[in-house]
């Protein structure tokens, strides 16, 4: 017991220090947590100056805590998913979101085909490069003050669109990965997954009143335990029936999003999400063998350059959909460049699948997220130089 406690202590301390360091240099904490996991984990580097760096193993506790990290990341995505906002602004959100999906998911498919990957690997790579990081994007546009500017609208609108796509996508991919090899079996699994999720979604939509009353609890402690219990139980039941636990958690979140409990959840449950999410990113680092990255270096390099470009273009078009100036449209593109947590959630699915899929996709994703979360943040910080040089070009192309 003492050894396990020390190990978890080392893990949490490493995460805390990494987060502090990232904060100091103004970068996202997510890549820092991953690097912390790589450093103290079982893979390279294993020692420094004769001192062992294999301090934390990927044990069951960390694995389950990381799983809870996924569940609560998606739970909050569902909680903060605003149906009202989507409906009120559906035309522009659909336009900007579709362009974003076509260009970036399309770029992922092109990469898979270009590098001779299997259809399933290609599908996963496309998902990884498509979805922007809500966490990194939101934090960056607040730090930069863009949140108070008109460009916040297409940025947040596109994120809302991505939320829906990712819910459907995860449900689909999870079913495909766990499913039987043949097409009929896969179709059955997908059908079953959507039936389960459909049931959760219906309860979420029509059960708002019930949820509101059931969680009207007198103190925060009881409230926290109820929310954690309900969410984890539904997610666990989903996983047990071969359905994406992440998407189930997403729908549990949406069930709460229509109730007055949202503020209290943000207050009381968010710290729990932060803890488990940090462990999730750290665990990704633990399981990452950096030396495998060499095998996907070419794919990685091309993906970073290509999908930075496609996000810039799709975001700029999204900004134009909102009638923004060239500079603000470019900022929309720059703002959406960071990829992080949801790409890693997708990679975790692949890691659980086994085979070559479990080697290539997670390694690629870790390298990709490390690059894109840092590159995206830095691009947002130095956006003025980019927009100054690119704005005339955008004005030319769009004929302003």
């Amino acid at each position, binding site marked *: 017991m003492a050894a396990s406690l020390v190990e978890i202590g080392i893990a949490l301390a490493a995460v805390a220090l990494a987060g502090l360091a990232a904060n100091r240099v103004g970068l996202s904490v997510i890549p820092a947590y991953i690097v912390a996991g790589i450093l103290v984990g079982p893979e390279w580097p294993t020692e420094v100056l004769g001192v062992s760096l294999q301090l934390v193993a990927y044990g069951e506790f960390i694995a389950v805590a990381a799983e809870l990290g996924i569940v609560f990341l998606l739970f909050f995505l569902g909680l903060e998913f605003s149906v009202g*906002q989507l409906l009120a602004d559906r035309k522009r959100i659909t336009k900007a979101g579709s362009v974003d999906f076509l260009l970036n998911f399309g770029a992922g498919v092109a990469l898979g085909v270009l590098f001779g990957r299997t259809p399933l690997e290609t599908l996963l790579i496309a998902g990884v490069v498509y979805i922007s990081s809500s966490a990194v994007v939101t934090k960056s546009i607040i730090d930069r*003050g863009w949140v108070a500017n008109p460009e916040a609208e297409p940025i947040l609108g596109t994120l809302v669109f991505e939320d829906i796509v990712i819910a459907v996508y995860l449900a689909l991919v999870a079913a495909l990965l766990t499913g039987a090899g043949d097409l009929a079996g896969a179709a059955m699994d997908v059908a079953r997954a959507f039936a389960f999720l459909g049931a959760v979604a219906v309860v979420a939509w029509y059960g708002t009143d019930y949820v509101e009353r059931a969680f009207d609890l007198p103190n925060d402690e009881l409230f926290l335990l109820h929310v954690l219990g309900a969410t984890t139980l539904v997610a666990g039941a989903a996983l047990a029936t071969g359905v994406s636990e992440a998407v189930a958690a997403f729908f549990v979140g949406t069930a709460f999003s229509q109730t007055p409990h949202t503020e209290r959840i943000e207050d009381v449950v968010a710290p729990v999400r932060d803890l488990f999410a940090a462990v999730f990113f750290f665990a990704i680092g633990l399981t990452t063998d950096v030396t495998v990255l060499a095998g996907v270096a070419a794919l990685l390099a091309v993906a970073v350059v290509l999908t930075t470009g496609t996000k810039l273009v799709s975001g700029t078009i999204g900004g134009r959909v909102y009638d923004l*100036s060239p500079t603000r449209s470019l900022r929309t593109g720059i703002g959406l460049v960071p990829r992080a947590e949801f790409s890693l959630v997708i990679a975790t699915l692949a890691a659980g699948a086994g085979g070559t899929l479990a080697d290539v996709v997670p390694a690629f994703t870790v390298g990709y997220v490390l690059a894109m979360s840092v590159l995206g943040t830095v691009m947002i910080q130095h956006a003025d130089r980019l927009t100054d040089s690119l704005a005339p070009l955008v004005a030319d192309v769009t004929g302003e």
Partner: protein
Amino acid sequence: MRRVVIRGLKLAGAGGTAGGTSSLNNGRYEPRNVTIYETEVPGVGHKFELEIDGDERLVVIIHHDGKRDVYRRPDPDADSEQLFSLTGKQARQLGSILEGAYFQPVELDEVEVPLGEAIIEWTEVGADAPVVGQSIADCDIRSRTGVSVMAIQRGEETIPNPGPDATIETGDVLVTLGSREEHSALSDLVED
């Protein structure tokens, strides 16, 4: 995005409740729509944009943890500049100040002067003034100028409500009640 239009009164300073309205500037009660735009910012909280004058907007971000960031955007093409950031408690205090609940200013024109036309003034007695050495009764200040002497300040000492036999000396400060004209007559009498 939700757009809330508050049909109400133009908010031109507080004090609308103070006394009669006749002397307040025209247009204060002109109806005007204050448009507030509300947007959810997922994971952060809510964003409110208030139209101020013309294209200028105030942007308030209310975080889930209660923190408020206030930005100002001078015109649609400009970037929003952050003006300040407040905790929930500070924001409520500022809010009540802005609302006028914390301190209700009284327009100066509206101050009801309890003394009618009269004001209180302080006048120093010059060395060569003809009244030096005389008592208040002797120099007959009341009938010569119209003011009433309420007190005499002599150095550190104050003689309140001086009687008719109180004498006036060089350097005394007379605290007197009267109209402006009466006070200018007093000044002619006691200053050099």
